[in-house]
């Protein structure tokens, strides 16, 4: 069985998602965590684009529309996350989440 091109891209998407998830858990620096989330998102988008590529002769527009929406959401998410990370840095002095900060105030 030959590996169809779309399948290759879909598997690459799964791989990106896994790499992003690993980094999200393993890295402590907030910028790296935010980047990791973006990598995870890109993985899903690649997967969706690969699915769209399957249909002949023209690509399926529905997954592409989803990716477009997903990118908008992802930009907003990154913006919000960066703003919050900046606030974390100004209030705690560091770009990492403190451990056991439950009781707070």
């Amino acid at each position, binding site marked *: 069985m030959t590996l169809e091109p779309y399948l290759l891209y879909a598997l690459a998407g799964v791989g990106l998602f896994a790499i992003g998830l690993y980094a999200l858990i393993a890295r402590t620096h907030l910028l790296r965590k935010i980047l990791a989330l973006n990598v995870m998102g890109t993985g899903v988008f690649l997967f969706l684009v690969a699915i769209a590529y399957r249909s002949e002769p023209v690509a399926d527009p529905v997954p592409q529309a989803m990716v477009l929406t997903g990118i908008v959401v992802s930009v907003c998410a990154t913006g919000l996350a960066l703003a919050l990370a900046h606030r974390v840095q100004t209030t705690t002095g560091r770009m990492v989440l403190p451990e056991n*900060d439950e009781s707070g105030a």
Partner: protein
Amino acid sequence: MTLWNTAPWLVWCIVLPLSAGILTFLFRRAAPWIGIASALGSAIAVAGLAAQVMHSGPLRYSVGGWGVPLGIDLRADGLSVLMLVMSAVIAVAVSVYAACYFSDTDAADKHAAQAHQRAYFWPLWMFLLAGLNGLFLAADIFHLYVTLELLGFAAVSLAALAGKRAAVVAAMRYLLVSLSGSLFFLFGVAILYAAYATVDLTALAGKVQPGPLAWSALALMAAGLLIKGAVFPLHFWLPPAHANAPTPVSALLSALVVKASFYILLRLWFELFSAVVTPATATFLGLLGAGAILWGSAQALHQPRLKLLVAYSTVAQLGYLMLVFPLTQNAGSALTAWSACVYFVLAHACAKTAMFLAAGNIAHAAGHDRIADLDGITQALPLSVAAFALAGISLIGLPPSGGFIAKWMLLQAAIGSGEWGWATLILAGSLLAVAYVLRVLWHAFTQVEVARPLHRVPRTMEWSALALSLLAVLLGLMAARPVELLRTGAPASIHAPGQT
């Protein structure tokens, strides 16, 4: 009359809060009034929608007339109407409370951020309501993803509103959790589309068959929703995020936002994946629920601060919702268990909002929320302590409260299918709830000779907490109508053979 019956109420449920979100951002002085008006307006729209659904069964509406597959469809059935009614009631009460809370110049935390909080609370809260209503009306899984993200962004920003170190850190953690949860969900959506070439809930319902693709989609979506829904052991982010937010926000996050993920899980489990799920997965989710009930209650018992205690109680109460999955495995008691868990959602929303608002009043008056130093608070704030106690009655599940009816139906389902383990767990959870509610009341009712200096709490804030707690208690007396409404458009998989 015809206008009432044919008006597109579903659209108004979303459009009203969405436009109010923009208006409250532009006209900051009038924001509380716009907010309350929009909450009342969407409550009227929800009432109109409820009347339509009760009259003529489940509804479907194509936005802009485009229809599937190009356009976005909205739909409403018994379950979504009940969720909308719940959010409408909570929205009105919390808006009234918040109008008072944020305008009170005598506030306990005279923070520099006070004006800032007032300016951003209303737009964010209105966007949250729009996202929530959109989510309950979504007819396809991609729309569910988008509304879930809208809801998550608004919720995270609201949780960060207090601007203090603990709140910002909690909000950051909440955002990371929320985003990764949504991406898991989106991956599930992508896999389902890859396998069945549609994202419409109704179209997918008949198509999903057991197989590696369906299993992986279910696993990814369930994982995403469990982490967003703070189901044990993925609840770690919830208590700090909920406890460090301003009072009206804590109430909204605990009562409404976590329920959204659970709502989606219910839809997926009983409509989409009913052919895929196995008793083992159901038991697994039930065991997570058991862990949540025991661990959350035990943590609630140990918390030094009142708001953290209430937040851990949310973790415990969410555990009960997970019991719906194992208890619906027996076809005979499936409908009872299903109704029980939806009723539980309603009862918990009212009781938990009331409890957070009452706890907020107490913290506001005392200037702190250390449980051990709350003696004498009843003398100063009888109404708020009464609200706390009444909400506690519903959380514990004493008659005639809504919590009682919900737990009663859960027990019926458990005993009816001979599941004594789950029945014991439900009772044990109630005993633990008695313990943590009484712990607060014990301190609150201790008399003091010399009253401590207390801040004044506006009447409106006390009454909105009390009104909701009374509703939580009275919910038990009007269970028939909601339970009947729930059967409108209930998924086929929970109907017992012979019942339609």
